[in-house]
């Protein structure tokens, strides 16, 4: 028995060594395969990095010295738009149409995912979900308000079912559970982390396949329908549903909002301060910053650390794709923890100022000030990739969603023109996005402090800490871009 044991041990050891060296050998093609995009950004040159970072510092202190001394953005003066305008945009026909479009696109994602070509660059489901939907709707939400709500396919389906129930039973559908207040935006935090996990990690070193995307969509649809049945359609959509919470967060920066069926306008940025008064709000915006950072760092700053972890995982017997998944999951969570810690330190610092509310309230009430930074990170990291992939979306993928050779709108012969932006333009967009995001974030924080502390002096003192946090975020973002942006 003992000789068998030692034999097994030797065989096991040999297998480990073999797996480890095979891992080291095969890692290059595992690491590089996830990029859908044919042209990656050149790193921001050192001089531009230095310039961006110093500009951030200078602007920060300049802002503090010239800033206003009484809160200006804390009250949201939402004013209804003219009735005819509101009716033209918010009406039953538009609602049905929006729901139909949403459900239609969901069906196309599923159909293309299950039946379409396996090549992710040629399949509607991958390009639409990760670019047009996930990135495009962020931009549209800031500009036009919470439009995802109007197209949300799960909400449309839920309303149809509950409407049918009301017709058949003559009463409203019963809601078995009350959405607990402590849950807040936490389901959306988990949703954002899992969504980006699917995009960057699930494929085990390759891009997720259209089939993976379709499976994930089925699972998410199932979960959402169950939760809507448990908590009520509107309740779940406005509180727990990931995409509504995520896009709705960015919509708070913009001027448009529909309330009780009426379109209205508010001053730019005044929608943000009310957004944060819910558990998990800070975690949601920090999760967004963290996953974008992770994507930027995965093949740049963190590639060495991830590779090391990957090798340890394959040493202990994980298959190569699983080693990739474990290593990257660990590092994504570490980045999230790091980003969270940085914000928490800033809050702890603010808490030392006289007249501060409890730390927990403080953390929550400044969470919205990070939304512009989350937006800036998205623009900086995905601007060029989005421009390329939208060309695919509106040419060959539009006409040939499954990749089977159809030409529905006559655009199947089109392709991506990678020469659409020069590297210089990409750099300037990236650095300007981060600097502008930084300024807006500081503005929101300064204004929030004026609304929180009883004296201008204490408010200013508290903002030294937030200033440090935001300078750290912005310079970290610049640093990531100066290393590599894949």
């Amino acid at each position, binding site marked *: 028995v003992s000789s068998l044991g030692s034999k097994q041990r030797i065989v096991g050891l040999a297998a480990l060594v073999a797996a480890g060296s095979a891992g080291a050998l095969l890692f290059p*093609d595992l690491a*590089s395969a996830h990029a859908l995009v044919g042209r990656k950004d050149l790193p921001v040159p050192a001089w531009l990095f230095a310039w961006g970072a110093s500009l951030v510092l200078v602007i920060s202190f300049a802002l503090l010295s*010239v800033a206003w001394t009484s809160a200006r953005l804390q009250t949201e003066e939402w004013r209804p738009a003219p009735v005819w305008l509101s009716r033209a945009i918010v009406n039953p026909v538009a609602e049905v149409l929006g729901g139909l479009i949403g459900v239609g696109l969901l069906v196309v994602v599923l159909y293309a995912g299950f039946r379409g070509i396996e090549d992710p660059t040629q399949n509607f489901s991958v390009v639409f979900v990760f670019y047009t939907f996930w990135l495009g709707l962020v931009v549209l939400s800031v500009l036009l308000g919470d439009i995802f709500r109007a197209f949300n396919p799960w909400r449309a389906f839920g309303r149809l079912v509950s409407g049918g129930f009301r017709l058949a039973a003559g009463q409203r559908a019963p809601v078995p559970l009350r959405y607990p207040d402590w849950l807040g935006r936490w389901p959306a935090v988990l949703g954002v982390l899992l969504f980006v996990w699917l995009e960057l990690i699930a494929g085990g070193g390759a891009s997720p396949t259209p089939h993976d995307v379709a499976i994930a969509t089925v699972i998410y649809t199932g979960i959402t329908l169950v939760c809507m049945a448990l908590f009520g359609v509107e309740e779940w959509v406005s509180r727990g549903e990931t995409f509504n919470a995520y896009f709705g967060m960015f919509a708070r920066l913009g001027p448009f909002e529909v309330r009780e069926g009426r379109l209205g306008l508010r001053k730019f940025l005044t929608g943000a301060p009310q957004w944060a008064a819910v558990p998990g709000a800070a975690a949601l915006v920090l999760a967004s910053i963290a996953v974008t950072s992770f994507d930027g760092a995965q093949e740049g700053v963190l590639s060495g650390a991830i590779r090391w972890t990957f090798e340890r995982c394959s040493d202990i017997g994980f298959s190569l794709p699983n080693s990739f998944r474990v290593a990257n999951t660990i590092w994504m969570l570490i980045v999230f923890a790091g980003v969270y810690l940085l914000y928490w330190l800033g809050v702890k610092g603010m808490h030392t100022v006289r007249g501060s509310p409890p730390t927990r309230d403080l953390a929550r009430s400044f969470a919205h000030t990070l939304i512009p930074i989350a937006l800036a990170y998205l623009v900086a990291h995905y601007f060029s990739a989005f421009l390329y992939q939208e060309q695919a979306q509106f040419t060959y993928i539009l006409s040939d969603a499954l990749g089977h050779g159809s030409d529905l709108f006559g655009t199947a012969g089109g392709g991506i023109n990678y020469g659409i932006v020069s590297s210089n333009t990409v750099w300037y967009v990236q650095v300007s996005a981060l600097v502008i995001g930084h300024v807006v974030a500081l503005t929101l924080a300064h204004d929030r402090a004026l609304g929180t502390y009883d004296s201008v002096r204490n408010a200013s003192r508290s903002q030294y800490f937030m200033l440090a946090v935001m300078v750290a975020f912005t310079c970290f973002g610049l640093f990531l871009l100066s290393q590599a942006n894949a």
Partner: protein
Amino acid sequence: MQSRAARLGVLAAVIVVAVVVFIVLQSDNSDESTDTAKGVQVLSVDASGNPVGGVKTLTYNKGDQVQLQVNLAKPEEEIHVHGYDKEAPADKSPVRLSFTANLDGVFEIEVHHPDGTEAEIAELKVNP
């Protein structure tokens, strides 16, 4: 001190400083002396389909001529340069590719295996 004129003055001064810093730093840009690849670059792919010596980075300036020779240990499907979408059949070794680097950015050069998988063999980096 907190008068409107003083504040605007500070703001104007900051903008002036920023513009000056920008110009100074940008003129510094000229001494960017990264080593660029010249002549025919030889890449080798081993029998398991992976690059010999790992993934190399080949750096060029925009407008340079890229000349590649890929030596293969066994027949492959094709060599593919992303972004430029240059493809060369790879049934016989060596494979030769030549084109002008007229697009800046970072691009993968891949070998496509007959079984449908692919591996990166080099990274093409074109400075503006």
